[in-house]
Structures are given as C-alpha cells and as structure tokens.
C-alpha cells in the first residue's frame, strides 16, 4: 500500500501519557478515576473490559472529545489538558478514530466520507482522488464509492469508517469495536490494515470484546474494570501472525 508510506511526522515522547486522570460528566459520578497510562510510540494495544467499564470514555479522552476533569494528558509529547481549541484540531489530524456506531455522514457518498479528513486538511484534490480510491479498493469497497452510507450494509459502513480513520496516515489509531459487524475473513483483513499501519510507525489501540481476535495477535492488552486499568501481557503466546 504505497499510500501508507508517504508521510513521516516524528515527535518526541510517548504517543499517550496520562497521569492521575479522572473524568466525570457534569456533576455525575466518576467514570474514570486516577488513571495513569503510557502508550509508547509504535505500540499496539487491545483495550478490553466489561461493558460500561469506561472504555469508550477512555478513548474519548484520547481523541479529545472530552477533557480530563482531573490529572494531565499528553498526546505526541504535547500537554493537551489546557490546550486551545485550534491546537486540539491540529492534534486531532494526527489521530484516526473508528467509532462503534461509525458516525458516517449520511449525506455524503462513501468516497466523500473517506476523503473528508484530507479535504479538511487542505490536501490537493489529485492526491485525494488517488489515495481515497486506493484505500477503498483495499477495504473491498471499489464498487461502492458513489453509494451513500444508508444504502450500505453494517459491515460495509464499518469499512468506510475505518478507511476514513486511516486515510490521513494517523500516528495514533483509536478503534472502538472495529470488527464488530464483519465476518471473520473481513475482520482479519481489517486487522491486517491496522497491523500494517502499526508497522509503519503508528500506535494502535483497539477496544474489543472479541477474545478470539485478541488471542490471535501477539499484542498486550489494557484491561479496564471498575475504573481500574491494568496492562496484561499478550494471550496469544506462541502464535505467529500469519498475515
């Protein structure tokens, strides 16, 4: 995938650094409490834990939809706890986010949805056409470029969402159940895309309930339960990843 090899913005420090982070929504109870976490550069983690443990909230802190109520958070070596909004926008351009519910824009074609991050970043239209086309081919949606999301199946929408998240060659990929709506073959193909991006230098965090999937890859996992985060070693043991 040549399109994945064109940009290399390096940065100093860890991809994510959280110290004593707490999160609560407007006077509600603590969703996250005193969390500390380091995601080094070029790492790959699964994020597991029971439903309602706060996985999505933890991810939302990292893609800057929420600010920590307490503690400090750095992304790409930059403290974002009190950063200005425009600075946050610049940092978000180095992130790729896959939402559990996709959040595609229904009034745009699959192609335009995937092209959105590039166009917002002001990338030239020739590059947009080439990169988005190639990426949609890769995720097997070459026949659906002009289709609108409501006309796509859940699995197809998921692939559009993933393509949108990675089209800008992000340095940190945050994916919330990215393989929840596809069959095993496509799940493996999508995982291969994440692994490929990881090998090219991105840090990847994938929140999932899919234990068999986690077991197939030699990556550590972050386990979040009752607001307590622990890092567990890979469960894949000796399995070589035959991708």
């Amino acid at each position, binding site marked *: 995938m040549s399109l994945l090899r064109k940009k290399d913005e390096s940065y100093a420090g860890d991809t994510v650094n959280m110290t004593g982070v707490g999160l609560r929504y407007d006077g509600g109870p603590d969703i996250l409490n005193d969390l500390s976490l380091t995601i080094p550069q070029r790492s790959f983690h699964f994020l597991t834990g029971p439903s309602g443990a706060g996985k999505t909230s933890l991810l939302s802190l990292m*893609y*800057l*939809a*929420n*600010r920590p109520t307490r503690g400090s958070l750095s992304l790409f070596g930059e403290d974002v706890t009190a950063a200005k*909004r*425009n600075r946050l*926008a*610049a940092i*978000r*351009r180095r*992130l790729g*986010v896959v939402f559990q519910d996709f*959040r595609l*824009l*229904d*009034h*745009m074609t699959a192609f335009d949805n995937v092209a*959105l*991050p590039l*166009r*917002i*970043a002001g990338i030239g*239209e020739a590059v947009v056409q080439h990169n988005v086309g190639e990426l949609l081919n890769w995720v097997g949606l070459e026949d659906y470029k002009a289709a609108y999301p409501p006309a796509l199946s859940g699995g197809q929408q998921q692939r559009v969402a993933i393509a*949108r998240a990675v089209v*800008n060659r992000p340095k940190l990929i945050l994916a919330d159940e990215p393989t929840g709506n596809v069959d095993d073959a496509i799940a493996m193909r999508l995982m291969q895309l994440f692994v490929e991006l990881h090998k090219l230098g991105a840090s990847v965090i994938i929140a999932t309930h899919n234990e068999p999937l986690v077991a197939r890859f030699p990556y550590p996992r972050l386990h979040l339960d009752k607001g307590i985060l622990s890092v567990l070693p890979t469960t894949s043991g000796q399995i070589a990843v035959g991708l």
Partner: protein
Amino acid sequence: MFAFRSDLPLRRDTASRFVLWLVMVLVFMASLAVTVNSYVNVLLADWNQSVSGTLTVQIPVTAAGDKASAAAVAKVIDVLKRHPAVAKAEAVPRAKVIELLKPWLGEGDAVADLPLPALIDVQLGSKGADAVAAVTASIKTAAPDAVIDDHRVWLERVMGLAEGFSVLALTIMVLVTSALGLTIVFATRASLAEFAQVIEVLHVVGAKDGYVAGQFARRALAQGLLGGAAGLLLYAPALALVAWLASRVDPEVLPHTTLPAAHWLALAGMPFAAGILAMLTAHITVRRSLSQKV
C-alpha cells in the same frame, strides 16, 4: 470544482427557505425606505433651490381700485431696482398668476374676473438674512400694506419634513438590519443543534472552529445575496408602477425629478449588504457557540 462543496447537509435544513424569504421581504422594505427618503429629499432640495434667495411681494387689492394698485406696484419695483441687494425684480403678469392658480381654481371667465393681488418676484443678489431685512424695510417704506413672503417659515417646515423622512428611513434601516441579524443568529443556532453530530465528526477528523464557521458563513452569504436579489426583483415593478403614477400627476403640483445615482447605487448594494451582514453574523454565532464547548 470543490469551491462550493459543503460538509453540511444543508438541503435538508428547514430554516433555510424561511431565511431566504425573510431576507427578500427585508430588502424590499429597506429599498422602499431608501427610495422614499431619496425622493423626498430631491423634491425638497428642488423647492429649496428654487425659492431660497427669492422674495414674493404681494400688493393687496385695495378699495382705491386697480389704478392705485398698479401705481403701488410700479413704485415698489422702482425702489427694488435701485436697491443694491436686489438682482432682479419684476411684476408677475396677471395671466401667469391665473396660470399658477389653475390646478386649484380651474380656468374660465369666473377666474379671469377674480380680484387677484398683484405679485412681484424678487431675486436677491445675496442670500443672507441682512439682505432680506434691508429689502423688506425698503418695500415697507414704499408700500406699507405690502405683504412680503421670504419663504423662510415655509422652507423651514419643508426641511423639517425632509429631516423627518430621513429619520424614519434610518429607523427602518436599523429595524431591518437588526431583524436580519437576529434571524441569522437564531437560524444558525437551530442549524448548529440540527447538525450537532455532523459538526462533531468534522471536529474529530480535524476541522477547526473557523472551518465549521466558514461552512455556515458561506451559506448565509448565499442566502443574503439570493434573498436580496429576490427582494430587488420584487421591488423593481413596484417602483416602476409608483414612478408611472407620479409621472401622471401635474408637474405644477408634483415637480418631475430624477432620483440621484446614489439612490440606485444604494439599491444595487442591498443584496451585497444583506449577504455580508448575514455572513458575518453566522460566522460570529458559530464561533461563539463552539468556543463554549470542551
């Protein structure tokens, strides 16, 4: 190709058509205010121009008869012609007086037989109040019962009327401008709520507040231009109709005037003014609303 690309599903937006319609109505009203103000000012300036620096001397009809009155007129004219402040003085012929009264009295023998006062038109060399006072004093000496009208009271009232219309037009402009501004603020807020999820996605994929605001501002600009153009289109036939009606009125009652270039420029500028006002309002509204978020 993508200059007009929008990331917001604006075609589904319900407030849009209402805003367009409202801009049209507001521009129509603003145009009307501009025209009325221009017309009244031109008309009154014409009158002002034609009467300032002039006096009208009336020699009343006396029991002594026409001859005495003719002698009085001749004496006053003689005095006036020798007065240094007077440029010109001449009796208005009786036929002209009847002609002037025609719109009110009609014509015919009855009018010809009416005892009408003799009139003297005086053109002053200088327009100062001193000249008026000096000339008035000379006339009073020559003909004590002469009635002298320097049109000042009349002029002041006419100018007062013109100012009244200007204030009225300005008031309409202020009302129209604030109505447009408030409409854009509320329509933009409604759109922000309607498209909250779209905007969140735009933010997640790296859009700055200015980019999002730009999307709304561009639409508001288009609405202002389009609605403004529609308002002018609606106004043109209305203006043409009124102009035609005015042209049918006797010029002695309503002098025919042409509206100044500034008036047409102001009308032509309406859609642009509406567009720019709408654009800035939308931009500021979005920026302020987004800056209160996380």
